Every structure is written in structure tokens, then in C-alpha cells.
């Protein structure tokens, strides 16, 4: 059972590990990796809360649309849970 998720489109100015080209894009969780200290805290030397981390798989069609070289190729990235929302959320 794969879970469809959308990467949140928020644009905070600090250190984050969610690439801009994936924001707002929908993918499926390929595997969950457990919890890791939040890099958004670590970067500033702050106590870091553990955040669940997922590998999300996107199709190139979803990410680049008509610009994709081959729409069926895929792209995987690790995205923290607080950057994800259910794909059907409005």
C-alpha cells in the first residue's frame, strides 16, 4: 500500500533540506527511514527534535510536466514528515 503525499509549498528563508523543485509536487512514500534530528534546528546549534523522514518517489512527469525527458522516469528524495501533507488535502 503506497501513500500519496504532497510536499508543502512553504518557503521559509532558513536552512532546510527540501528542494524547491519538489515543493507542491505529489509523490508516494517509497519507504520510511525512522526519525532523525531536525536539520532546521541542528543548523543553528539548537536542541533538535527528532522528525520522521520518508523517501518519496515522484515521476518526472509530476515534477517537470511536458519538460520531462521521459515522463516515466522517477526521482526519489528524502523529505521530513513536517514537509509532507496527504495528497488529497486542500
Amino acid at each position: 500500500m503506497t501513500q500519496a503525499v504532497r510536499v508543502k509549498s512553504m518557503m521559509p528563508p532558513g536552512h532546510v533540506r527540501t528542494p524547491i523543485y519538489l515543493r507542491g509536487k505529489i509523490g508516494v512514500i517509497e519507504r520510511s527511514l525512522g526519525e532523525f534530528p531536525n536539520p532546521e534546528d541542528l543548523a543553528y546549534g539548537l536542541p533538535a527534535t527528532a522528525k520522521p523522514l520518508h523517501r518519496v518517489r515522484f515521476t518526472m512527469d509530476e515534477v517537470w510536466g511536458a519538460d520531462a525527458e521521459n515522463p516515466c522516469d522517477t526521482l526519489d528524495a528524502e523529505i521530513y514528515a513536517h514537509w509532507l501533507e496527504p495528497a488529497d488535502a486542500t
Partner: protein
Amino acid sequence: MPHDHHDHDHLSPSGHPFRADDDTDLSYWQTMEIAVRELLVEKDITTPTEIANQIETMDARTPSNGAKVVARAWADPDFHAALMKDAAAATREMGFDIGPLKLIAVENTGDIHNMIVCTLCSCYPRNLLGLPPDWYKSRAYRSRTVREPRSVLAEFGVSLPDSTKVRVHDSTADMRYIVIPKRPQGTENMSQDELVALVTRDSMIGTGVAKAP
């Protein structure tokens, strides 16, 4: 601390010449490196021995370590299964000192070609393969690989049929990746040691394929 005054004739611990900049004019950033290093020693945060040991440890990490992992995965089905399940644990069990590296192995087949990039910086499985090549850290590789992986592969001399799916992995967070290249044809009777020689660094990043025997 190693006595490095005018040591341009020496080879580095990894057996290759150092880049030729030790005898050029002292730069601002080199001055900063010396200062940081000496301050950390004076404040008892580290020692010259610890720094030298860390350099030795890093020098011992080369693509040949990864090549041994790949060759064993080709030759040993049980190891292959363990590697695909938990690549860090399997690699550690082989005796490689990979530190806290969290590793995922992704495998190339007739239908799938994997390649690795880090668009946000230049994350690389350095604890297994050593330091990344310069091109891996370049703007061009970081920018283009997620959008036009096939064009990038073509520049590396790798052309894939449309029927082969490309899977790009952007190392955005805590995981690092090693590609297990497809085992070349005609290698059925080769020993693990012979197979190691076919595994190139680029084949483990996904910008190359294993050499033909």
C-alpha cells in the same frame, strides 16, 4: 604534526602527488586553516595526532572499497540480500570502517538505471567511497541531473533505451546511496577478486556502467 616544510617531492598517504599548491604564496584561507588547527590544539579540543589519524582514515577510503562490496553482491546471494536490506550493516560486516554512514544500495537491472546526485550541496557516501570527484560537486551536475538525467548520462557516454527507467536519487537528508551496477555479461566464471576490477567509481554513482571483462 608531520613536518611538511617544502615536501613537494613527497607523495600523499594515498600514494598520489599532492595538488601543487603547498609551495605557493600562503593564502588567506590557508592562514585560517593553520590558525583554526593550532587554536583547537591549544584549547585541548584536538591533538596533532588526532588530525593526522583522521587524514589517514579518509585516505584509506577509496572507490576500491565500494568495488569490493559490489563484487561480493554479484557473487554472493546472501550478501546481496543483506546489502539490499541494510547496506550500512552489510558493509560494516565486511570490515569497512564507515563510521555513522547510513547507506542505501540501489540496484541497476535491465529495466532500471539508478543515479545519485545531491542538489542542495554535495552529499556523497564518502565514508565508503572516499571524497567525491569535482564534477559531482559542480553546479552543472547538481542542477541538471534531476531534470535531464539522460542528457547528463549521455555526456558520460552512457546511453539507455527508452525502455530502461531512470531513477534519480537526490540525497537530500540523512541517507547516502551506492549504485550496484548491472553485472556485465560474460563474467559468470570470474572470481570475486576479478570482478572487483570491473567496478568503477562512476558505476557506483550511476554515471557509468561496470567495465566489460
